């Protein structure tokens, strides 16, 4: 009789996912699936709304990465208002948005490493669950925990200064921005009291990388062999092949590094990408049209970005990029735990970009908005912390949204997350009759490497814990674990 293990993290209202692991009669894993509830209905919700509301409206999607949705929507609407396709904004308009975006990247990557990844690294998958969290890090590695808190705070304050406020920011508007950065704000971020200044943030980002590399040197076998599987990779890159997290062309490489999407304009994304619906998940499965549903899936996010770009246009991150690429002799990296490594290189890159932007006098200029001839349709794509984020809108003659299509980063990573879970499940669950804390955490670690946004939009009291249920093929519960 087959058995099924279900891991079900349930949040209050939506955004929950669960892992189902199917066992055969010998207790060997035959199939694993990650089911994630996404933002069903949001695209329909946008219909009929005035287009200029959208950059604020889309922040309802997610309390974790509202800035990414805000900017992707604004970029799409830039096209509709005739302000160009990512390169038509005024210097202050584009650079303020880049500053906002890198503030978001910096705080998000810092949060992920210090809050989510470092407990796994410091205490291990089999560590005491009571301390395998950021509080445990605070107890035993106070310096790391303080750095995580203050790096996140620094990024959040960049967001507040550029978006106007922390909740439902309004900084990006169709065609530009609604404020520049004052000299006082600039100086606070450049030369603020220790530790909230950019030089300290860069130093701490380097320290986080050194910490990871030190851990990697001692745990190479684990880091190199946890959830490894070949994948294609997709991201935006600048036209010269440089990493560019705010704007670029769409490029993808296959598992061997061969280019399979060759610098496609963002406005043409729907010519190369389609989405498949499967009956066991609310989340769609995007794929490259040219390769079909079986072979066309791809990975996005830090690992993909470092596999796709040719170089990083800031010196400290570029130096780390060269060390990182040498690990795979320049070939694509398919090791899931290297996602953390890649994320930390991006953390350093974002800190460097923030410093460069703060020193740029364009941020104090007053020509905030570009105007042009209005069109009907626009696409905005951005490299969000978790990966490539697509926003696509069409308006009617009354300036109302007629069509909206969003492909969020976590959706792009649907297939690779499923493969990572399946890989780990086979090694952790084969031959087991019950679910242990360590087994559960290995599945979590595989998912966590992708930093998926499972708890979007709402959060309030009453969250339920992670639940693992082992049932047979007839639905009888054989084992159940919750934490």
């Amino acid at each position, binding site marked *: 009789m087959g058995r099924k293990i279900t891991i079900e*993290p349930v*949040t*209050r*209202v*939506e955004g929950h996912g669960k892992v189902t692991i199917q066992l055969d009669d010998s207790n060997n894993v035959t199939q694993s699936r990650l089911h994630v509830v996404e933002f069903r*209905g*949001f695209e329909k*919700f946008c219909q009929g709304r005035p287009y200029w509301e959208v950059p604020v*409206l889309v*922040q*309802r999607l997610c*309390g*974790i990465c*509202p800035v990414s949705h805000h900017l992707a929507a604004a970029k799409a609407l830039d096209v509709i208002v005739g302000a160009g396709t990512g390169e038509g904004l005024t210097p202050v308009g584009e650079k303020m948005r880049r500053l906002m975006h890198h503030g978001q990247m910096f705080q998000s990557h810092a*949060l992920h490493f*210090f*809050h*989510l990844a470092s407990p796994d690294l410091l205490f291990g998958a089999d560590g005491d669950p*009571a*301390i395998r*969290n*950021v*509080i*445990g890090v*605070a*107890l035993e590695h*106070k310096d790391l*925990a*303080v750095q*995580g*808190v*203050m790096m*996140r*705070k620094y990024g*959040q304050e960049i967001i507040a200064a550029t978006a106007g406020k*922390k*909740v*439902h920011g309004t900084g990006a508007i169709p065609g530009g921005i609604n404020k520049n950065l004052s000299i006082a704000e600039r100086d606070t971020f450049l030369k603020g009291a220790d530790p909230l200044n950019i030089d300290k943030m860069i130093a701490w980002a380097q320290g986080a990388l050194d910490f990871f590399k030190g851990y990697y040197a001692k745990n190479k076998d684990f880091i190199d062999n946890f959830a490894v599987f070949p994948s294609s990779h997709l991201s935006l890159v600048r036209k010269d092949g440089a990493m560019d997290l705010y704007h670029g062309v769409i490029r993808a490489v296959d598992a061997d590094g061969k280019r399979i999407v060759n610098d496609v304009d963002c406005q043409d994304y729907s010519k190369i990408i389609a989405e498949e619906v499967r009956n066991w998940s609310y989340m769609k499965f995007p794929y490259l049209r040219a390769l079909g549903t079986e072979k066309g899936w791809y990975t996005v996010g830090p690992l993909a970005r470092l596999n796709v770009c040719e170089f990083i246009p800031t010196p400290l991150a570029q130096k780390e990029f060269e060390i990182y690429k040498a690990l795979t002799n320049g070939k694509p990296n398919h090791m899931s735990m290297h996602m953390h490594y890649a994320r930390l290189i991006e953390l350093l890159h974002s800190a460097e970009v923030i410093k460069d932007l703060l020193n740029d006098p364009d941020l104090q200029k007053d020509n905030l908005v570009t105007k042009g001839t209005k069109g009907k349709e626009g696409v905005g794509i951005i490299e969000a912390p978790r990966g490539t984020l697509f926003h696509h809108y069409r308006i009617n003659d009354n300036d109302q949204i007629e069509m909206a299509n969003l492909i969020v980063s976590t959706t792009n990573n649907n297939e690779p997350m499923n493969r990572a879970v399946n890989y780990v499940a086979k090694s952790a669950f084969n031959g087991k009759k019950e679910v242990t804390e360590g087994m559960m955490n290995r599945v*979590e670690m595989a998912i*966590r490497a992708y930093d998926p*946004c*499972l*708890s979007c*939009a*709402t*959060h*309030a*009291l*009453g*969250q*339920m*814990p*992670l639940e693992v249920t082992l049932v047979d093929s007839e639905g009888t519960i054989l084992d159940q674990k919750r*934490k």
Partner: protein
Amino acid sequence: MKDNKVYIYGFGNPGRQDDGLGPAIIDKLESENIPGIITDSNYQLNIEDAHNISQADAVIFVDASLEADEPFSFNRIEPSAEITFTTHTMSPESVLALCKELYDKDMEAYVLAVKGYEWEFAEGLSDQAVYNFKEAYLFLVTKIEEMLHPSRPVAAENMI
């Protein structure tokens, strides 16, 4: 309370109907310029809030809740290291625990949990949540007064 500083922190997403109860209460408080308090709001609690609240002597977290009594519940909380799988957010108790460990601040802390009912992609509170908001706000103002001035009698009309 030596510095008379009470941190009032509302969290939730105003774009998800009643989930915006916490930020709505903060907006109302800020419009009345009550001295001696620090107000803040965000979508969710997170690690940097351990540093933010460390500047105060007491904290009241204000949040929407599915499970609270009507119109609201008010409970003292203690630090707790429990972290859920939902990963990108922290509970008030875990923020307190982080604050205690990193900043050696063991503060008086409460959660004002206001009952909510509707959570769709829309702005504005449901009618029932508006009623709960008013009740919770009156209570909160009274509680703040008590915390800032423990020896001062509270006006009868502010008592629930």
